[in-house]
Each structure stands twice: as C-alpha cells, then as structure tokens.
C-alpha cells in the first residue's frame, strides 16, 4: 500500500490541503470557513500522512507536541480576549487595528481556535494510532 507513488501523491495532496486549510482559516471571517473547519482539514491531511508514512513520522514533522499546540491555541484565544481588558473594555471585546485592513483580535481568536482544534484532534489521532500498533 505504501508505494512510492502513493506516498509522493499523498505528500502533494497533503501540501495542498494544508494550504487550503490556512486559506479557509483566513477567509473565514468573510466567507464560509474559519478556524474550526480549517483545523479539521489540516487534521485530515495529517491523517493521510499517517497513512502514507507513520505516526512517528508525523510527530517528527510537526516538531511541537500536538498537545502543546492545542494548549497554546486556547492560550491565544484567551489572550485575544484579555487584550481588551488592558484597554479597559470588557473581556473578548474586538479590538481592530485598522478599519480598512481586516486585522483584529477576533481573527487572532480564530487562529487560536484553529490551533486548539488541530492540536487536540491530532493528538488523539496519533495516540490512537500508536496505541493500536
């Protein structure tokens, strides 16, 4: 099953999927998409990678432990909410730097969601695969 062709194709597809997932994340505020959808696509991409290579390979490729990614995701979301507190506004108030350029804490929040979901689901996926082996 793990033929060279399959692996090469898989890598290409995975690359495209990861790019697509980032694209979905970034456009999520305006078009269908968003952190959660993006993250799930990324996880599916890595599921493919597990299939093509191995769980260990994936672990090495991500560098960070998926659990840590998940935690930092929640951390980023929390922080994006806390940001407003420093400006003496209620927790989670959206702070936008430029009205013209869509860049603000809600987007940061969505990035946090992306990382949290990605890390969490990937960590279970890896764990189950390892456990079953």
């Amino acid at each position, binding site marked *: 099953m793990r033929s060279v062709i399959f692996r090469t194709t898989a890598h290409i597809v995975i690359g495209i999927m990861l790019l697509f997932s980032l694209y979905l994340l970034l456009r999520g*505020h305006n078009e269908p998409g968003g952190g959660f959808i993006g993250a799930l696509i990324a996880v599916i991409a890595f599921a493919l990678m597990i299939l093509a290579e191995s769980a260990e390979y994936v672990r090495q490729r991500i560098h960070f432990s998926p659990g840590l990614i998940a935690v930092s995701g929640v951390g980023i979301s929390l922080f994006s909410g806390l940001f407003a507190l420093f400006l003496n506004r209620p927790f989670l108030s959206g702070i936008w730097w430029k009205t013209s350029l869509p860049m603000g804490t809600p987007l940061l929040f*969505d990035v946090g969601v992306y990382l949290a979901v990605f890390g969490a689901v990937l960590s279970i996926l890896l764990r189950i695969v390892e456990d079953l082996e």
Partner: protein
Amino acid sequence: MVISVFVHLLLLLSLSSLYDPHGVRWQWQWVPSLGVSFSIQLDGLSMLFSWLICGIGFLVQLYAYHYMKGKPSSALFHIYLTLFMMAMLGLVLAGNILILFIFWELTTITSYLLIGFNHDQQISRKNALQAILVTGAGGLALLAGLIMLGGMAGSYELDHIIKNIHLIKTSNLFLPTLILILAGAFTKSAQIPFHFWLPGAMSAPAPVSAYLHSATMVKAGVYLLARLSPVFCHSDLWFWSLVLVGGTTAVWTGLLALKQTDLKLMLAYSTNVALGKLMFLLAFGSRFAIAAAMMFIIAHALYKAAFFMVIGTVDKAAGTRDYRHLAGLGGILKMSFIAAGLSALSKAGIPPLPGFLSKEYMYKAALGVSYLPTAILVLINAVMAGLAFIIVIKPFLVKPDENSVPLKSVEKYTFLWLPPLCLGFLGLFTTLFGLDWLNATLIGPASIAVNPGLETEPLKLWQGINLPLILGGVSLLLGLVVYRYHDAISGFIDQITRRLPSGNDCFEKVMQMISRLASWQTGIFQHGRLSDYMLLLFSILGVHLLWYAAALPVPRTMDFHGVSLHEVILAVFLLAAVITLLLSASRLMGIFSLGTAGFITTLFLMFYNAPDVAKTQLLVETLTVIFLVMVVRRLPGFADTATHSAVRRAVNAGVSLSIGVGVFWTLTSITSGTMDTKLTDYFAANSVIAAHGRNIVNVILVDFRAMDTLGEISVVVMAALGASTLLKKRKRRNG
C-alpha cells in the same frame, strides 16, 4: 478534673446568686431572622434542676476522679462530663424552645460519647448507638413539634408561648404538636415503648450512670413536659397519655427490675419506674401532685445517684455486680454501706427521708383523683421498696457463702465513698432542717412554673396519721413481702417476660428491617445494568414528551411547501440508512450506514443555506468514520454480545418512538408560529459595521458569542487530554 469541679461550683454559685423566685430573664438576639434568640430563663423549675445538675455533677466529678483513676483517657472523661453538664444546664435554663432543643440535642451527642465511653467493647458501641438513635429520633419529633408550637404561638420564646395559650388551643395543629412533643419527651425519659435504651446505657462507666440516670439526661423529658404543661395540661390527650404511658412504664419496668440479677441493671430499671411515676404525677397536675413530683425529682436524684456510685464502688471491690455472688460487703465498704442504707431508706419511703415526703404527697394527690391510680401507686411503691431492700440487704448484710467472690478494700480512695455519703446525708438534712427553705425557694416557685394557676402549700414532714401515711405503711410492708419472696417473684416474672419480645429485641428487629429495606431498594434502583438505567431515563423523557406534546395545539397545516423532490428522495435514503444501521449485524456495515446518514444530513444542511455547518459536519463525519474504523477492529463484534429479549426490544422501540414523535410534534408546533428575529437582525446589521466580518456565522462564533467558542475549544482540548491519558496508561503497562 480540678477545672471541671471548679466549673460546677462556679456555675452553682453564680446561678444561685442570680436566682429570684419570680424568675429572671436574659436575652441575646442570636439568629433573629429565624426567630431564635438566645434567651435564658431562670425560675423555680429551672433553679431546681440547675441545683441538681450542678450539685450532683460536682459530686459525680469527685467520684469519677477516683473511679477513673489510672484509665488512660480519664481527662477526656471529665471533659465530656463537663460538656454534658453544660448542655443539660443550658436545656433547663433555655427561655426559647429552639434553644431548649439545641441543648437537648447537645445532651444527646454528649451522652452518646459518655455511654460509649468504653468503646473497645462492642456492646458499649451498640448501646451508645441505640441510645442516640432512640433519643435522636425522639428529638427530631420534638423539633417538628416545637416548630409547630412556635408557628401557632407566633414566637419561639417560652413566655410568649405561655401568654398565647389561647392561640394554641384553638389551632387544629394542637393535637399533632402535642403528640410530637410527647414523643420527644417519652424517648428521652425512657418511657414504654422506648424504655429499653436506658438499661442498655448501663454499659457506661458508673459515674455516667450516676449522673445521666439520676438527675439529668433522663429527667430532661420530665423537665420538658413540666415546662410545657401550662400549654397542654388542659387537654385530655395529655392526661391520658401521661397516665397510661407513665403507669405502664412504672409497672412493667418495675417487674423487669425485679428479675435482674445485675444490681446496676436493677437500678436502671428502677430509674424507668421512677420516670414513669413522674409522668403519672405530671398528668394529675394538682398542687399535691406537682409538689410531690418536685420533691420526688429531688429525692430520686439524691438516692439514685448515691446508689449508682455505691454500685460502682462495689464493682471495683468485688469485680462483679451480680447480687448472687455478692455478700458481706457491709464489713468492708463501711462508708458505702451507710450511704446505700440512707438511700435505700429514702427509696423505700421511710421517714424522715425525702422519699417519704414525696410519697406522702403522691398518695394525697392520687386520692384526690380516684382509687385506681392510688392502687397503682401503692403497687409501684411496693416494688420500689422491695428493690431498695434487695439492693442493700443482699450484698451488704448477708453472710458470704461459697458463691461469693473475694472482696478487696477500695475505700482508701476517699472519693469512692464520700460523694454518695454526702448525698445520703444531704437528703436527710434537707428534710429535717431545710424544708422551709426548700418550700420557699424551690418547690413553691417550681410548682407555679409548672402550673401558674396553682395555690401552693408548703410541704410538711409530719401531717398526723392519715390515709396517705397508712398507704405508705402498706406499700412498705408489701415491699418487705417482695423482698422476702424475691426469688419466687423473679422466677415468676422471668416466666412471663421470657415469652414476650423485649424492647431491645424489637429495636434490633426494626434495625434489621431497615437494613433489609435499604438493601432491597438499593438493589432495585442501583442494579448496575447500564441499559436499564438508560431505559429508565429515556422512558421518563418519552412519557413526558408524549404526554405534553399530545396536549399541544395542532398546527393547522403541515408545512411542506418549498420542499423539492430531491429532498424527499434524500429523506427516504436517510430513512433507509438509519434502518440499515438499526438492523446491521456487522460493525463495519453499521459504520457505513452511520456515515451515509451523516452525509445525507450534511446535504440537508447545504440545502438550507448553512454552508459552514455543512462543511463542519462533513469533516466531523469523515473524522468520526476514520476514528471508528480504527478502533472498531479492537472491539468485540455485535454477534458476541447478548441482545435484549424481544419484549424488551419492543419496549425500547416504544420508548424511542415516543421520544421521536414527541420531538417531531413539539418542533412542528414551535415552527408553526412566528419567530422573534431581534437577535439575528442585530447580528446582520452589525456584522460588517461593528465586527468587520461578512460571514455572520463566523462573526457570531468569534465575536458576538466568542465566550461559547472559548468554552468549546476548552472542551476539545480537555477531551484530547483525557483521551490521551486514558490510552497512555496501557502502553506503559505493556512496555
């Protein structure tokens, strides 16, 4: 120990100095919003009891000093005794019925600790538990009664309640209140059918018995009834229940006392007798009866405390309390013998001791009612006298024989004989020299407290030869007869009582029944079968939904407009997928049909303009299938697991159908109305302007309702954390 003795004396003196026969009140708001103020009321009745509590407490502490000497936890013992004393004192001084109740319960707790003091022995633990359960249960009945009493009178303050008797009398809660309060008093004062805990409590050390069963704990019920008698004494139920319960208790426990061979148990049962007699007297409520009761409380406290202490000393000297093995104690325990003798004379009612005085007035009171109670009293007093003789003559005066155990002298410890001796002489002196003082300061005011309408008459020691005196003589003679034929009588009583269930047995039966009931009902509700638990939950849900959905207004038309053909076809496919899932015999088939159902659901989400949801659903469905396929190979197949019976499956189907139909109907009903779109209008209007996003759903998720999302990602992260630690464990074990 020194401290506790000091505490007793101090309290005794301070109370005496505060005392005023007209009553002293002091109040401190404790929990005013619940109507509970910490009120202290010191009148004749309280003072009489306070004197007994502190005075006898003081002597018991002295006695315990030598009695408990060398025991490892003697300090603790003195602490408990002091705590108990304070609780008891609080009880008799309380001017608020809830404060009274609080102290009542405190005496229950502290007496539990005292009764179970020899907790290494199983019997002690068992009896302590029995005592606290019986008195505790009664206490809770009392609580209900007191709450109702307070509710009727509009206040928990005693003086307020007594002032508002007319409100209470006319209330329809009068009877239940009375019954509940009586239940509390009867349990505490060990009346039939709750009498058994008192002899059981004899597994406590001697000082405890001397204290709890002479002047304090068991008298709390008597005190309570005396205290509340102005409220209730006009009721027939009050009269009859006190007469019947008191009389039965006195007679029956008197018989039981006669058959005992353990002197301490004999004393315990005779305490039951005394308490029954007091109830009897309280029922009459006349001035003679109450005066006799007050006098008897004093007399009984003095002689019974002395008796218990003497028996404790005897136990120390001989190592047994069985009179069949005791003889010749008089020669060794001289002082104790004198104390016991004086107490016995008082108990038997021989002049000029306090017992005589109370007996005199008792007959006077009874004669004022009718002959039957008089006859009962004569009988009871005869038994009392007989018991008094048995307790003194058999162990102390009879010559030792081969049955007797060897004795050792323990009177080198002063406090083993001094306190009972003091009590004996105290009784003697009180009646001889202190009667006027007693009348004026204690008995008179106390009688008024019990029944405010009474004209009191000072007690007199000698009233000439009259019927009461003759009756006293008769009961004394009968007592001698009892003593003379004791063996025969006790054998006879034994014959009778052996066939009847004892209170103790009944208690055990009840406890067994409760524990059987407990296991039975726990077996029913906590059987351990998950699918039955689920069935219970779902059937409640199903019944609820069906019941109320049926009552919903029927929407005029089913709203199927705008539904296109492909939707209907998809719906049919969905149904097919679900049915396949329900019937699937293989795991993979199940997953396949589950996935299909999920994807069709996704399509519906697409049709109804929910692109984000549809995408998410699709991805989640995909991942779910991936996870399921990975794990499922390690799970046992469907065929390896037992299935429900056909009947049960039908029930399951019924329940699930009712839930499905209920949800469908409710949903149809809700959607047939119009919806308030205030929220969505706001979101649509502000999405671009205020939140800088065109995808309203996403803006809601990350901005309008970002808190939901924060919680949601926490959930996902925690699920990952929990699941991965669950999996990690096995790896470690294998590796």
